[in-house]
């Protein structure tokens, strides 16, 4: 449980610094430091168990159906990384307090830093691989924010975008890889995956899985050819570079290599992919580092190179190489973070990071210079510093790499070459900055930084020295614990001693040291040579160019797909649905085991009427009124079909809705052209016809497939309980007002909202009224034919009586609130048609909005009433209250709900139709256009 606190403290605590900034900058830094410190204390509290060889696991199911659990794991490797993250994180918090200027928003900085810290801790403490991936992506996001912290600078924005694109893309590949891994092993839990090495490596999908996961690791750890984002991420504030780009985030990739080392390593493929990439990165980084004039650029490429070295070590695949890899992770984190901080101090004090302008700073800041020299010596691999120890182990391992056959001499040679460059750029870092002539063109006089800005550097440099001189007394237990959980088996024998006798690795070190110094002395000639060979090698320009091209292509694609034509969208929508349905239906057995019923003549006739009128609607759709008449034939036959198949409620509803729809369409048609122009090309008509035929065929096939299969109904309960539980014998109505009353409440609410929306849309709408019909004939003079209005008036009470009857007995026989409401609405609309708006409104002074609202209110209050009986909303009290008297009440309560439905339906239907009808009253006649 407390394990999760290590992650959650910084995660939730990320909100604190932005709040504490109101109390001042120091308070803000303290809030961040306290959170990180507490997390560190919890970690240390757990560490003895880990040193004793235990693996702490905490599991909390999250989305078990997906295999995603919130499960954490604290073993040696996790402990090492968590210590690095929290320890260096604390130093960074202290450093940033003095590094950030008054104008920088410090609260935001610490907030994002804590967020990043939490994400990193999540990666290293995850037991579940999917959880790991979630945190992995979170680091990409939070590092994007941190790199782009100075958002007013375009290089910061571009660098952040590049880092996000590369690491995010790698993360996607890794997601695929992890899913494959889960598919192979059947679990996403690390303990299962790590124990299934043989299963994984024998699987046919192993090469794909490995490549995808490595893609994730390599992009994160800036391995060749994805290394170029790291130098551009140096636009970030220096504390960010020191933290993310030396100690933590870029280590996430190699952490993953170490984490999955037992499961994935040991094959030839692993060796060539990982060691090959590592070697290329090692050389490339070391070479470029020498030629960077920017201090942070040099450090960035040096980081790339060292990450390549670590990758190469894991690629070699022997347990000893893995130990060396873990060791170098520790050492690199300490010396590189301190070097970044030193570079930050220099930048802070002189205002420049260009080594061609710097020089001679020893005179101004001897303290900082000393610290930087120690760290640089460690980077160069000088004896007595920690870098030397892991570099010696690295040299020794390159000599023993398998798989290389007769080319086995190549690896030590390349390693020595890289080390030679590494010495050269380390010397350059020190000599060009602190010695020689200069500084040049510096506006202010440099001096030592504030006291506490140096403390983090001092701590790290002290660690470099301590580990370098007394390895067995300092780092040995941690290294052993971490290496043991990396290798996953018994650790091989290794010695952390400084002196192993005069052997080949030592010789390689000496060659590198001597060669590096010589290389440095020749640097000016080399710079000239480099400038001639690599004038165009700017990965950033390539990236930006590629980005611009991608954006252009996606613009084109969007313009092609989304050209603003709704007609086209509808076509694409239908086509894609067709493809999805078609492909899934293809090849399946459609016909089920149930025998077909016989067709009688009347039904066949009805089907004929339906089919012909539907087709005729399509054929004459351009003559709109005729098509509308044909459409009502279709509606009528559908209603009769509902009767034929024993659904009287549906038939009643369909009939009334169809009539209301036809009225609605006629009201609209008045304001629209009476004919559609013939504007579809033959090709388009054919295309649409084919699409429509395909869709029809799929739906028919689907219906056929279902109809010939036996029914497994879930309605048994409703049929049984309708009478005793719902108090009504019309099960459809009881479902609507009782069993699924809540759905119905939602539905009438939607109806009311739609009516209000229509009312609002019609407000202020002015449409020209046509003065002639479609053929250019003037309208008849007689507005309200006498016979029609005279007969319609006595029909109204008759129709209202019918609707009342339908409403009241709907619970027991076909009918109910919906149908009764529609019938009432149609009866009232008839009065509008026969006698006009003015006449009707004089005699029918209801406010339809209030009527609709009161309907919803009545239905809701019926539901609330059941609270009064201490039952959930809309509960049928009948079921629970045994008293016969209250049983009767329940019956009444369902009826009241139905009355609410009725009022809503009447109100909204009239609101829609009457307001559409009223449009002509406000419209002005317009000039006839021919």
């Amino acid at each position, binding site marked *: 449980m407390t394990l999760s606190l290590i992650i959650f403290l910084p995660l939730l605590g990320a909100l604190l610094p932005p709040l504490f900034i109101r109390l001042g900058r120091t308070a803000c830094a303290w809030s961040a430091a306290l959170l990180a410190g507490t997390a560190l204390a919890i970690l240390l509290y757990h560490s003895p168990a880990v040193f004793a060889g235990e693996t702490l696991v905490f599991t909390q199911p999250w989305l078990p159906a997906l295999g995603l659990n919130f499960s954490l794991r604290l073993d040696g490797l996790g402990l090492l990384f968590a210590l690095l993250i929290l320890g260096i994180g604390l130093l960074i918090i202290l450093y940033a307090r003095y590094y950030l200027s008054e104008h920088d928003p410090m609260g935001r900085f610490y907030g994002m830093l804590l967020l990043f810290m939490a994400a990193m801790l999540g990666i290293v403490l995850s037991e579940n691989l999917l959880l790991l991936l979630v945190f992995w992506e979170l680091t990409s996001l939070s590092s994007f924010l941190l790199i782009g912290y100075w958002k007013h600078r375009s290089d910061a924005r571009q660098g952040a975008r590049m880092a996000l694109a590369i690491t995010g893309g790698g993360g996607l590949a890794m997601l695929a890889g992890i899913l494959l891994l889960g598919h192979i092993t059947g679990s996403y839990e690390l303990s299962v995956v790590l124990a299934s090495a043989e299963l994984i490596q024998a699987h046919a999908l192993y090469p794909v899985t490995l490549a995808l996961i490595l893609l994730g690791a390599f992009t994160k750890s800036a391995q060749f050819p994805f290394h170029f984002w790291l130098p551009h991420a140096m636009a970030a504030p220096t504390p960010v570079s020191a933290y993310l780009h030396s100690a933590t985030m870029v280590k996430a990739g190699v952490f993953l290599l170490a984490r999955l080392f037992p499961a994935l390593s040991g094959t030839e493929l692993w060796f060539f992919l990982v060691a090959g990439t590592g070697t290329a990165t090692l050389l490339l980084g070391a070479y470029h580092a020498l030629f960077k004039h920017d201090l942070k650029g040099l450090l960035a490429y040096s980081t790339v190179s060292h990450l390549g070295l670590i990758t190469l070590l894991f690629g070699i695949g022997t347990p000893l190489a893995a130990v060396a890899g873990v060791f170098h992770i520790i050492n690199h984190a300490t010396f590189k973070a301190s070097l970044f901080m030193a570079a930050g101090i220099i930048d802070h004090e002189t205002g420049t990071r260009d080594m061609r302008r710097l020089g001679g700073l020893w005179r101004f800041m001897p303290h900082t210079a000393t610290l930087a020299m120690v760290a640089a010596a460690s980077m160069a691999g000088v004896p007595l510093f920690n870098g030397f120890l892991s570099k010696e182990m690295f040299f020794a391992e390159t000599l023993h790499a398998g798989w290389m056959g007769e080319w086995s001499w190549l690896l030590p040679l390349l390693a020595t070459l890289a080390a030679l460059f590494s010495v050269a750029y380390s010397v350059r870092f020190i000599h060009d900055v602190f010695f020689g002539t200069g500084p040049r063109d510096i506006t202010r006089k440099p001096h030592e930084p504030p006291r506490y800005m140096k403390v983090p550097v001092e701590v790290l440099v002290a660690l470099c020295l301590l580990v370098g001189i007394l390895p067995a007394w300092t780092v040995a237990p941690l290294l052993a614990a971490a290496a043991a959980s990396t290798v996953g088996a018994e650790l091989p024998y290794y010695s952390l001693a400084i002196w192993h006798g005069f052997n080949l690795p030592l010789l390689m070190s000496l060659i590198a040291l001597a060669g590096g110094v010589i290389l440095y002395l020749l640097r000016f000639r080399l710079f000239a040579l480099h400038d001639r060979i690599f004038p165009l090698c700017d990965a950033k320009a390539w990236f930006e160019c590629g980005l611009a091209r991608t954006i252009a292509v996606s613009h084109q694609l969007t313009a092609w797909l989304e050209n603003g034509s709704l007609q086209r969208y509808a076509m694409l929508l239908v086509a894609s649905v067709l493809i999805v349905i078609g492909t899934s239906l293809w090849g399946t057995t459609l016909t089920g085991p149930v025998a077909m019923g016989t067709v009688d003549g009347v039904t066949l006739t009805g089907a004929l009427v339906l089919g012909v009128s539907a087709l005729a609607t399509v054929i004459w759709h351009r003559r709109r009124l005729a098509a509308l008449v044909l459409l009502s034939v279709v509606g009528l036959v559908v209603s009769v079909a509902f009767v034929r198949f024993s659904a009287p409620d549906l038939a009643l509803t369909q009939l009334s809705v169809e009539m209301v729809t036809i009225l609605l369409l006629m009201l609209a048609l008045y304001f629209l052209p009476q004919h559609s122009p013939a504007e579809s090309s033959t090709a388009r008509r054919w295309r649409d016809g084919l699409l429509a035929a395909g869709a029809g065929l799929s739906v028919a096939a689907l219906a056929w497939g279902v109809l010939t299969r036996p029914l497994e109904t879930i309605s048994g309960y409703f049929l049984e309980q309708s009478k005793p539980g719902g108090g009504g014998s019309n099960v459809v109505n009881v479902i609507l007002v009782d069993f699924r009353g809540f759905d119905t409440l939602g539905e009438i609410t939607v109806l009311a909202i739609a009516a209000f929306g229509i009312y609002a849309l019609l407000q202020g709408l002015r449409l020209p009224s046509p003065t002639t019909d479609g053929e250019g004939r003037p309208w008849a003079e007689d507005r309200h*034919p006498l016979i*029609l209005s005279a007969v319609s008036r006595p*029909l109204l009470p008759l129709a209202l009586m019918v609707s009342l009857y339908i409403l009241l007995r709907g619970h027991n026989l076909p009918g109910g609130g919906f149908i009764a409401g529609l019938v009432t609405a149609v009866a009232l609309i008839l009065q509008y048609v026969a006698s006009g708006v003015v006449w009707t409104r004089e005699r029918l002074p209801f406010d339809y909005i209030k009527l609709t609202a009161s309907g919803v209110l009545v239905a809701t209050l019926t539901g609330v009433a059941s609270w009064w009986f201490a039952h959930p909303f809309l509960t049928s009290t009948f079921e629970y209250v045994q008293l016969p008297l209250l049983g009767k009440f329940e019956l009444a309560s369902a009826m009241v709900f139905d009355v609410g439905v009725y009022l809503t339906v009447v109100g909204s239907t009239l609101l829609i139709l009457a307001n559409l009808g009223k449009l002509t009253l406000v419209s002005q006649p317009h000039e006839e256009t021919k």
Partner: protein
Amino acid sequence: METIIEALVALFLLIGAAFALVGSIGLAKLPDFFMRLHGPTKATTLGVGGMIVGSVLYFSTRGEGLSLHELLVTLFLFITAPVSAHMLAKAALHLRLRTVERTRGEGALPRGDAE
């Protein structure tokens, strides 16, 4: 059920159906709209009337009593059928539909004679 009643019901049903068919034949066969208007409005309505009489006879002898629906349907139909016919004729006159020679009436002139 008594045979006589059953025979009566059957008779009414057949008469009703026959009238409905006659109405539809008229609708389909007669040469112009004003003639066609006669078929459905008279024969078909009568046909439905016959059906309903048969239904009333049938259900009332089965002890379910006189049903309100049938009465209402009849009432509705007999009130509304003339009105819809009237409205349709009005519309047709307004639209000056083409007619055959024999169709004569105020406002309904053979097409060639239209103003």
